[in-house]
Structure formats: structure tokens, C-alpha cells
């Protein structure tokens, strides 16, 4: 019985501090097989190509339709979602590795806390409650609604942070995704009240000035958000904010 197999070379790590190592697995081929489905097969029968039974590979996934962002990992050297990485469309053997821009918890499972922290820094929310009456929601500007909708697709998967050469342990750059979220909330009819706050936060160390224009972010974004366009817009906005800071006082 000559069944077609797909070879996976997986970079594993038992704990946040331990040394990474690789293991190889064979998975039965079937049409439409994707990386998440293959990882599920490995989980069912975690036996390496040498016939050794090992602990199942740990990874994260949720929606399986490129909406939640959880299954982001480095597949054949590039950051992308595992759920939409079809085996038929990628080179074999398939190399899987965790996105090491983030701290690795175990195997392919990473800790994305830094993205949430970055969203807190840039005030990635709309101030709704206060000492005022809460009225009906204001209407969105129809001319910018399309852009806001596009940026709101961001699922904080971290592809852009992994691909960006300026994000990592060597730098304090918060990364393209959280930076561009500032623009989304600046577009919001209520969020725009806090625009100066967000722009001032982006002018801090690790903010938008750490962008080196390598433009990898826009190439790898699985949601096709025009990150570099909005980064340039924010660069414009922070320049204007800087002039205001200097001359309004």
C-alpha cells in the first residue's frame, strides 16, 4: 500500500527556557490538507519518522478560517496562518517553527502579550463613558468608513511583527499592527477626540519612529491591510502633531 506522505520538520521547544530541537513527522496526504489539519493528525498519533513516540506538538488555533489569527507560525521561513496554508500550495518538506519575535511558551505556541500591551500604549479603544450622557452611536464618516473597515480586520495575529526586521528582542518597536490601530481609532467619530494622545504616544521611544520602511508588514499581512500607507499617513500626522506641540504652547 503506497500511500502518499507529507513530511513535516517541526522546531520544538519543551518550555520557555529550554533549548529548541527539531523532529520530523510524516502525515498521510489527502486533498485539501492544510497545516492545522496535519498538526491535528500528528496530535492523534505523535510518532516521529524514526518511529519514536513523542509528546504531541503544541500549537494554537481557533477559527480555522483566517479570522482569529491564533494559528500564526513560521511556515517555510515565512510568518503566516497555518489554517490557510494548504499543503498542495507549499514546498515540501514543510518546515514549521514558532514566531520567535514573541516569547515561545511551548513548541509552536507563543505569547502575544506584547501586542496587547502595545494597544494599551497607543490607546487602542474609544473612550465611551465619562461625565457626559451616552447618546446613540454617531455615524461613521462614509468617506473613511471603507478604510476603517479594512484596518478593523486586523486580528492581532502578529505576522507583521514577525516579518518586520525592526521588531524583536533587539528593539523596542511596538510593531506595525498596533501602530496602525492608532489610525483606526483616530478615524472614529468619537475616537478622534483622543487623536493627540495617540499621536503623542506614537512619538515616544518604540513608537512609529522605529519603523525602518522595510515594508515587509504589508507583504505578509494575511488580511491585506495597507499597513505602509497608513504608517505614512501616521508619519504625516505625528509631524503635524509635533508642530502643534512646539507652536501651540
Amino acid at each position, binding site marked *: 500500500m503506497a500511500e502518499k506522505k507529507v513530511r513535516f520538520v517541526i522546531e520544538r521547544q519543551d518550555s520557555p527556557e529550554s533549548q529548541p530541537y527539531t523532529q520530523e513527522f510524516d502525515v498521510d496526504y489527502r486533498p485539501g490538507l492544510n497545516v492545522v489539519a496535519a498538526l491535528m493528525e500528528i496530535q492523534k498519533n505523535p510518532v516521529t519518522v524514526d518511529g519514536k513516540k513523542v509528546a504531541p506538538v503544541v500549537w494554537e488555533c481557533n477559527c480555522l478560517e483566517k479570522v482569529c489569527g491564533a494559528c500564526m507560525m513560521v511556515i517555510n521561513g515565512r510568518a503566516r496562518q497555518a489554517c490557510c496554508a494548504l499543503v498542495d500550495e507549499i514546498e515540501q518538506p514543510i518546515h514549521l517553527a514558532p514566531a520567535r519575535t514573541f516569547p515561545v511558551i511551548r513548541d509552536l505556541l507563543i505569547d502575544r502579550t506584547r501586542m496587547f500591551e502595545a494597544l494599551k500604549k497607543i490607546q487602542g479603544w474609544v473612550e465611551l463613558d465619562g461625565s457626559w450622557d451616552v447618546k446613540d452611536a454617531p455615524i461613521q464618516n462614509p468617506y473613511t468608513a471603507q478604510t476603517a473597515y479594512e484596518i478593523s480586520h486586523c486580528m492581532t495575529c502578529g505576522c507583521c511583527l514577525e516579518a518586520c526586521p*525592526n521588531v524583536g528582542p533587539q*528593539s523596542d518597536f511596538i510593531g506595525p499592527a498596533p501602530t496602525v490601530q492608532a489610525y483606526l481609532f483616530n478615524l472614529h467619530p468619537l475616537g478622534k477626540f483622543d487623536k493627540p494622545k495617540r499621536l503623542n504616544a506614537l512619538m*515616544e*521611544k518604540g513608537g512609529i519612529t522605529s519603523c525602518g520602511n522595510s*515594508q*515587509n508588514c504589508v*507583504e505578509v499581512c494575511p488580511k491585506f491591510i495597507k499597513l*505602509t500607507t497608513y504608517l*505614512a499617513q501616521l508619519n504625516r500626522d*505625528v509631524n503635524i502633531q509635533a508642530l502643534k506641540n512646539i507652536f501651540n504652547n
Partner: protein
Amino acid sequence: MFHTTFYIRRLHSICGLAVLGMVLFEHIFTNSMAIFGPAALNGALEMMELIPKPIFLGLELGGIAIPLLFHAIYGVYIALQANNNASNYGYCRNRNFTLQRWTAWYLVIFLIWHVGYLRLYTKGITGTPISYELLQNYFQNPVVVVLYVLGMFAAIFHFCNGITTFCMTWGITKGPRSQNVVSVLSMGLCAILCLITLTFMGSYLI
């Protein structure tokens, strides 16, 4: 909140493009006189000597030395924050990003040698004026020629790619089309300046 990082980054950007760009153009302009023979280059060099000494020294310090040291030292700090990954993400802009840093490293070493030997030692300490004959003698060594041509190419690429990134950093070019147009134009300028360099460097060898 005084956004020190923001102002230093923007100063680094404008200092590289406007001030050091001028220095690069001055060098290419004066040196290209060598194409028209020894008399033309020596004439151009003597013209610069006509500028009163204190003003000339002030220009060298304020227009070259200080901006160059600031751009180089802060630039090293910026370069150290990058983890170049063009092997995995081989897009044109990412390759240029890596090349921008490689040329920067080469230029730091090259300029210490170039300024140290020609300006500080030859012109400063020994008091020998720079002339066509001195340079021709200097360029008899093929290793020096190759390292100088590479130094010029590195400076020209670093400057031209800098135009593209300057326009993004200052929010001048926002969309991909305008960014591409500037990128193509600046790479065209890069090619022209490299050709001029090859021509005047070659004129010493014939």
C-alpha cells in the same frame, strides 16, 4: 512629555538627506572635474582654497564633521535595532533595507579611513594640498581604487535609497504608487551618480 526619540530620529533623517547629501554632491561635482584633466580638477580645488580659512573650517566642522558624526553614531544605534531578514523575506524594499544597513557599516569604516588619511593626515598634519597628482599617485594602488569605488557606490546607494525612505518617514509619499515612483527615480539617480563616479575614477587610470 518631550519626545526626544522623535526629534532625534527626524533630525537624523533630515541631516542625512539635506546636509550629507550636499556633501556627497559636492564631492561628486568637484571630483568629476578630473574627467576634464588635471588642470580642471586642480582649478576647482584651488577655487575652494579661496574661501577664507575660518569660514572654510567652520563649514567643514558644522557642515560635515558634526552632522556626519551624529548621523553615523545614531545610525549605528539604529542599525543595531534591526535583525535583517532579507533571506526569508526577499522583497525589493526589504533587500534595500538590508543594503541600507550594510552600506552604512561599510561607510563608517571607509570614512574613518578616507577622512583620517586624506583630510586629517595628508592635508592637516603634513600640510600637503590635495591635487590631481596626489590623487593619481594614491590611486596607483588597485586595492585603494576598488575600496574607493565601493565607498562611493555605498554612499550613493545609501543617499538615493535614503530619498525613498525620507519621503515615507516624513509622510510625503503615502500610497504605493507614489512610493514606487520615488523609488524608481531615486534608483535612476543612483545609477547616474555611480556612472559619473566610474568615469572620474577611471580618468585617473588612463
